[in-house]
C-alpha cells in the first residue's frame, strides 16, 4: 500500500512540526492545522470504499493486531494451556483460560508472528494437527465446566506439509467440527484477520460468528483460486471480488452474524478503539448466549448448520 506510506510520512511530518512548536516556541499551529486537515482528507479518501482486494491486504497487514494483542487487551488473567498430550504443542494456535469481565472463558486463538524468528516458531499462523487437537482438548474442558468459548480466527490455512498429512490434519479438522457442532456450552467465533478455509473453520463452528470489518473469510485464498480456476496467478484481485470474502459481503449473504467496525485506516491505526468495539460485542453475545438453556443453545446451533447453503428446486422447465 504505497499510499499508506504517504500517510505515514505526512503523519511523521506533523509530529515533527509539533515538537518544533513545543521545543523552540515557533508558532507553527497554522501549518499544523493545515496539514492535519490534509491528512484527514487523505485518510478518508484512502480508507472509505475499500476494494475487496484492499481488505485482503488489511487482513494480512503486518501491523494488524493479532490474537495475543486482543487476549491482552480485551481479557484478563490469560492462563495458557499447552500441548495436545500426544504429539506436542503448536504455538500457531493458543489455548487457555481467561476472564471476560469477571466471567471465566476458554480462548482458542490463532497466532501469527511479528518477526521472522517468531514466524519460524509460529509457522506464519498456519495451524498444525496437534494445534487442532489441543483446541479440541480445550473445547472439552470448556464443556465440562460450562465456560463459554471464544475463538479468535487468524490463519492463512492449516499448515500444508508432509508431517501434517502424516498426523492426518484433515481428520483433526473434521473431529473439531464434530466436537463444536454439539458442544454443550456457548461458542463465539471472531475472525480478526484471515479466515483461511478449513484451517479456520476448524475453530469456527459457533453460535455466533463475528468478523472485524477488514477481516476476510474464504474457502480458498484469492491467489490459489486465481491459479486454479483462472489458471492465472495474477488474477487474485478478481478472485477476491468473486469469492465474496469480505465481512460486509458475508454478512449480506447471511453467513456471519455481526461485522465489528474498525477505525478509519484499520484496526492497527487505533487499537484502543478496536479493543473497545471487540470487547462490547463479545460481551453482548456471550451474555445473550449464557442466558439460554443449554439444550436450546445446542438445538439452535444444529439448525444453523443444518440449514446453511443455497440451492433451488429443479423445475420441469430445466
Amino acid at each position: 500500500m504505497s499510499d499508506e506510506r504517504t500517510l505515514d510520512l505526512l503523519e511523521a511530518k506533523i509530529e515533527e512540526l509539533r515538537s518544533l512548536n513545543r521545543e523552540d516556541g515557533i508558532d507553527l499551529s497554522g501549518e499544523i492545522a493545515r496539514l492535519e486537515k490534509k491528512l484527514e482528507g487523505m485518510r478518508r479518501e484512502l480508507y472509505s470504499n475499500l476494494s475487496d482486494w484492499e481488505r485482503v491486504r488489511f487482513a494480512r497487514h503486518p501491523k494488524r493486531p493479532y490474537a495475543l494483542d486482543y487476549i491482552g487487551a480485551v481479557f484478563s488473567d490469560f492462563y495458557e494451556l499447552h500441548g495436545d498430550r500426544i504429539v506436542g504443542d503448536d504455538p500457531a494456535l493458543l489455548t487457555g483460560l481467561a476472564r471476560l469481565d469477571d466471567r471465566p472463558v476458554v480462548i482458542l486463538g490463532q497466532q501469527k508472528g511479528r518477526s521472522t524468528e517468531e514466524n519460524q516458531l509460529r509457522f506464519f499462523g498456519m495451524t498444525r494437527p496437534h494445534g487442532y487437537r489441543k483446541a479440541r482438548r480445550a473445547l472439552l474442558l470448556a464443556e465440562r465446566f460450562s465456560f463459554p468459548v471464544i475463538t479468535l480466527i487468524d490463519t492463512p490455512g492449516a499448515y500444508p506439509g508432509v508431517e501434517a498429512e502424516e498426523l492426518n490434519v484433515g481428520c483433526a479438522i473434521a473431529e473439531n467440527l464434530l466436537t463444536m457442532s454439539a458442544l454443550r456450552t456457548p461458542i463465539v467465533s471472531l475472525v480478526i484477520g484471515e479466515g483461511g478455509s478449513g484451517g479456520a473453520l476448524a475453530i469456527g463452528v459457533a453460535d455466533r460468528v463475528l468478523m472485524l470489518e477488514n477481516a476476510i473469510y474464504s474457502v480458498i485464498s484469492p491467489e490459489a483460486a486465481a491459479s486454479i480456476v483462472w489458471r492465472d496467478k495474477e488474477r487474485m484481485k478478481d478472485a477476491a471480488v468473486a469469492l465474496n470474502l469480505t465481512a460486509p459481503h458475508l454478512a449480506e449473504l447471511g453467513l456471519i452474524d455481526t461485522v465489528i467496525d474498525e477505525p478509519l485506516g484499520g484496526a492497527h491505526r487505533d487499537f484502543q478503539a478496536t479493543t473497545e468495539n471487540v470487547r462490547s460485542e463479545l460481551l453482548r453475545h456471550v451474555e445473550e448466549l449464557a442466558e439460554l438453556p443449554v439444550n436450546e443453545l445446542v438445538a439452535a446451533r444444529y439448525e444453523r448448520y443444518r440449514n446453511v447453503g443455497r440451492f433451488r428446486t429443479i423445475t420441469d422447465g430445466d
Partner: protein
Amino acid sequence: MSIFKEKRYVRVDVESKPEEGLWMKCKSCGDLLFKRRVKENNNICPNCGEYFFLTAMERVESLVDEGSFTDISKPIESNDPLMFVDSKPYSQRLDEAREATGLPDAIVVGRAQVEEIPIVLAVMDFRFIGGSMGSVMGEQICHGMETAVLDGVPFVLISSSGGARIQEGVFSLMQMAKTVTVRRRLADARLPFVSIMTYPTSGGVQASIASLGDVIIAERGTMIGFAGRRVIQSTLAKELPANYQTDAFALEHGGIDRVVNRDVLRGELAGVLSFFVGVKR
C-alpha cells in the same frame, strides 16, 4: 478375503455407440482396450489392472445388489449464489457438467441393498466439477444420513472429490460443518457409517464427513489427503515421498482402516455391515 462370500459384479448394460469409438488406450500400460470389455471389468484395465474412474451410477452398480437401487436424491440444483465468474461463468460450468454427466450435481443418493442388507448410500461423481462439494452436495449428504436414520439402516458414503467447490465460496466451506453436524444423528441412532474413499478424497471432503466414518475403507489406488501435492510443493519447495498421500501412506499413518481392491469392495462392505445388523437401538 475368503471369509466373505465371493460374488460376481453386476453386469452393466452397455449401449453400443460406435460413433464414440469402441476403443480406448490405458493411461497406465498404453494397451489398446475394447471399451465394452473394460466397462464389464468394473473399469479395471484387463491388461495391467489399472483402475479407471467410475461414474456415480457405475459405482452404484458395482457395489449393490442388482435392481436394488432407488434414487432418492432431492430434486435440487445449484442456484449460483455468488453469481461467480472465473475464466467462464459458474452457471455455464454447471450446464456443461449437467450435460456431460446427466446429473444435477456431483452426487447421487439412494436406497439399496448390499448382499441383502438395506442401506442408504451417497456416491460422488468426479466428472461433475471434480466431485467438488457445494451447497447441493452438502444437502444431499445430509438428506442421505437423515433417510438412513428414518429407515434405521446404515449409511455408506463413497467419496471422489477434490474438495470444497470454489465457485460457491464460504457456502461450500460451510458444507463441511453442515455434513458433520448431521453425522451425529447417525451416532445418536446407533447406526453405522461406512466411509469409502476412492480416487481422490481430498480437501474439504477429506477434512469433514469422509474422515468421520465408523469404518473407513479406501479403494486401492486412491489419493487421500488435505492439502494438494502442488500446494505443498509450492509452499515448502521440497520433494515429497513417492508414496505421499497414497492409500498405503494413509494406512501406514493410521488414517484409514483398510485398503481394498475394487473387485472385492462389495463383499468387504457386506461383511463389515453384517456386524451391525441386529444391534439394539
